[in-house]
């Protein structure tokens, strides 16, 4: 492989500095994706360095895999090739932040925890909270379209990313979007990058919409004796003028793992507003819960950080369907887990129809795929939904595609986009939908 030559390693080191270019086999092994070990890991310090690194790799016909904090490298099909990993951990600066604008421009390697600390003194926040994700980089969260309970009020990275600087497959440093909260100048290029898993460009700098932190916030855990009761409560909540800001739904196993009181189904909800409004809505929430046979208790704010534990199994599935069907998919997931002989924990985004299924150790790969993944995927896809393998060992990935079926005509367009912007397959080849 060309990259093993001293010349290329030297050229990478010339750009990023020798100490920021890993080639020690033991160090490289920790960057393996699906068992494949990269030939080099480079940690650039600037967008310009990223641009030069990618241009070098493109010229040398080496592949580039972008990496933020490294927490979601298990997402995607096994790489077709894995040569140079560009790790953005040195690019963490907040480049522009005027609190009155409620917009910040930050380097893609900045972590959510770091940004939260940066904005908190101004009572503002970047409202992205993927479970267990405080250490994640903002670039990684956007590239994987990760989201959490705050989605209930604020949406996802798709709604928050206003502008993006990225490096194309040939090294061209490119900007899309704007640095203001409203802009329709040209195509909405940032939308194309969110969730694209670094296959169209390496995100180096992002401009994000922030929100004010409400003066008061309180959380409640509502427990329900059955899926039906929880489903009726949820339908009532969604059909009411109540405005929670965070919402999560958990099954009994997930409640236990998150350190919360256990019921067959529980919801964790928070309301954040003026203090009087929090009290007032909290009472309405408890009444609505009680009317559906639920019991509600106040929950500490740390309950939210505990949700990460509910999705930390070696296999993690992401089922997405119509939101009104969420509780039925919870039932389907439990039934499929029983068939496959595995323990699962379920964590869902109510109101968005997203259900994460975490599978614990001691699984049989063939049964997980044959009795759980594929039947559940077929059922979801029949209703316009999908099932993604967010994380899983190679023996699972060997038996099923990570992303599932995509309409062939739509895939043709996606494929044309990839071919237009990365004809040589430099960026993260093989891992995205259909092997793009």
């Amino acid at each position, binding site marked *: 492989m060309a990259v093993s030559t001293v010349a290329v390693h030297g050229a990478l080191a010339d750009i990023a500095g020798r100490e920021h270019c890993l080639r020690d086999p033991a160090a490289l092994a920790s960057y393996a994706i699906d068992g494949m070990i990269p030939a080099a890991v480079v940690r650039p310090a600037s967008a310009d360095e990223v641009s030069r690194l990618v241009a070098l790799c493109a010229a040398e016909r080496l592949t580039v895999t972008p990496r933020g904090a490294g927490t979601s490298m298990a997402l995607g099909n096994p790489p077709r090739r894995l040569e140079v990993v560009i790790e953005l951990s040195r690019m963490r600066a907040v480049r522009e932040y005027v609190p009155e604008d409620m917009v910040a421009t930050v380097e893609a390697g900045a972590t959510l925890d770091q940004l939260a600390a940066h904005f908190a003194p101004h009572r503002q926040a970047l409202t992205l909270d993927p479970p267990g994700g405080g250490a994640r980089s903002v670039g990684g969260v956007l590239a994987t379209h990760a989201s959490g309970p705050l989605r209930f009020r604020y949406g996802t990275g798709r709604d928050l990313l206003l502008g993006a600087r990225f490096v194309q497959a040939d090294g061209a440093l490119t900007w899309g979007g704007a640095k203001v909260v*409203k802009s329709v100048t040209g195509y909405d290029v940032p939308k194309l990058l969110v969730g694209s898993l670094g296959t169209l460009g390496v995100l180096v700098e992002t401009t994000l919409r922030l929100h004010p932190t409400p003066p008061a916030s309180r959380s409640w855990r509502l427990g329900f004796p059955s899926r039906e009761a929880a489903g009726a409560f949820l339908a009532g909540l969604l059909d009411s003028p109540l405005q929670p800001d965070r919402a999560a739904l958990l099954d009994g196993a997930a409640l236990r793992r998150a350190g919360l009181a256990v019921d067959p189904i529980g919801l964790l909800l928070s309301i954040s507003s003026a203090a009087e409004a929090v009290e007032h809505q909290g009472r309405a929430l408890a009444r609505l819960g009680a009317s559906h046979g639920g019991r509600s208790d106040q929950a500490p704010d740390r309950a939210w950080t505990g949700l990460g534990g509910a999705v930390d199994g070696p296999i993690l599935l992401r089922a997405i369907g119509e939101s009104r069907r969420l509780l039925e998919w919870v039932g389907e997931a439990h039934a499929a887990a029983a068939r496959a002989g595995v323990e699962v924990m379920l964590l869902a985004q109510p109101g968005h129809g997203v259900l994460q299924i975490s599978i614990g150790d001691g699984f049989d790969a063939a049964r997980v795929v044959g009795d759980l993944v594929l039947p559940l995927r077929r059922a979801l896809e029949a209703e316009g939904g999908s099932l993604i393998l967010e994380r899983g060992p190679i023996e699972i990935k060997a038996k099923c595609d990570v992303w599932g079926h995509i309409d062939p005509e739509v895939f043709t367009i996606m494929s044309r986009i990839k071919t237009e912007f990365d004809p040589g397959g430099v960026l993260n080849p093989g891992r995205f939908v259909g092997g793009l």
Partner: protein
Amino acid sequence: MALTPQILGALQDIVGPAGLVVSAEGRLTYECDMHTFYKGAPDAVVLPESAAQVAAIVRLCRREHVPIVPRGSGTGLIGGAMAPEGGVMVSMTRMNRIVELDFPNRCATVEPGLINLWLSQATRDRGYFFAPDPSSQMVSSIGGNASTNAGGPHCLKYGITVNHVLGLEVVTGAGELVRLGGKAHERPGYDLTGVMVGAEGTLGLVTGVIVRLTHLPEGVKTILASFPTIEDASEAVSAIIRAGIIPAALEMLDEVVIRAIEEGVGAGYPKGAGAVLLIELDGPTAEIEAQSGPIEAICRDHLALEIRVAQSEAERALLWKGRKEAAGVFGRLTPNWLLQDAVVPRSKLPQIMKEVLAIGARHRLVIANVFHAGDGNLHPLICYDDRVPGELERAKQANEELLGACLRLGGSVTGEHGVGLDKRASLPMQFADADLDFMARLRRVFDPDSIMNPGKLLPSHPACGEGFRPAARPLPAGTWI
């Protein structure tokens, strides 16, 4: 270009005789959108009734290398839904049904020609509404809103159209009829829905839209605050945002506009004020009450002359009527105008308003202002009279200087109207060559033969500069900004 009888015949075979307009008078109706400077009638207008018909039209035009221009209600302000190169205009006015209201999933499936407001009217009794509210919402179509990624006063809190589009059915410039996104809120692969929204019909034609429905808030409070000067009002806007309050809407009207509205529709705005803020809070009643106190205090701190809270739904509707029909009364102000909708960072609002006044004074022109202050989305209306020699030139110069000032402050060329024919020459002020090249290549992916709305959205097309013909009276009754 003229269309051959064969092409016209084929179009008629697709849409039927009632769906084809070829007469000169008939086509004239479609020669411009609300930006009446730009004129270009299509060679034929087709009014399809289904996505399959739209797909057949695109395949025919692609085969024959005929330009296609999509059109909703024609209320755009950018020279978008007009045909500078002729060709076939596809008007969506006959595809205007609500296909499905799905309250449990909080979404609706609609045809592109559906009028924006009709959807909110159809869902209000069930407690829902469609949040994007461009001032044209009584007449503009949801397909047009999606194609221009329309904004509106309440986008301050609720987000712009793209935040409310879950899925699209489109016919790409390559003739593919595809469904993007859908009722499920995530889908593997690239976010083609997000790319298609705001593409102004240059990537394809929208034939169906799945939109979010939003639950009506528990309460609404509309406050009118008047100020001695526009600077005072601008400082008040910045202070409200700085206090961490995001109202549902935060609109500014200056003295010129207030006067015109009072003479026109009579919304009860105070006449002597230098500026008026229309502030709307919505949400849980207790939250509204907790926020309105600080807002009123901020207004008083910034020398508010009067703070009035709408006491009834009728009074509230009247205050909004003044704002939403503001542009329609501009005929009282000026025979001609240039309008732009550049954006500045919110903190720069007081600074840019000073610049606006200075630019107007320098060019001896009245610049009227009515805009989405909370978003920093300006709508300076540069008034001129094209019968006065040199005024148009001065107006254009003022327009350029204003745009330059907004961009120097870190802003954007257009916040909600879009680019169309009008602003494409300004894109290089905001984007570098590599950025524009990326967009041009993206366009080619969807429209390999460059037949979709050619000459719009991106700069350096051969048609650049053509079509700019000042009309004697470029003020159609009922224009919305």
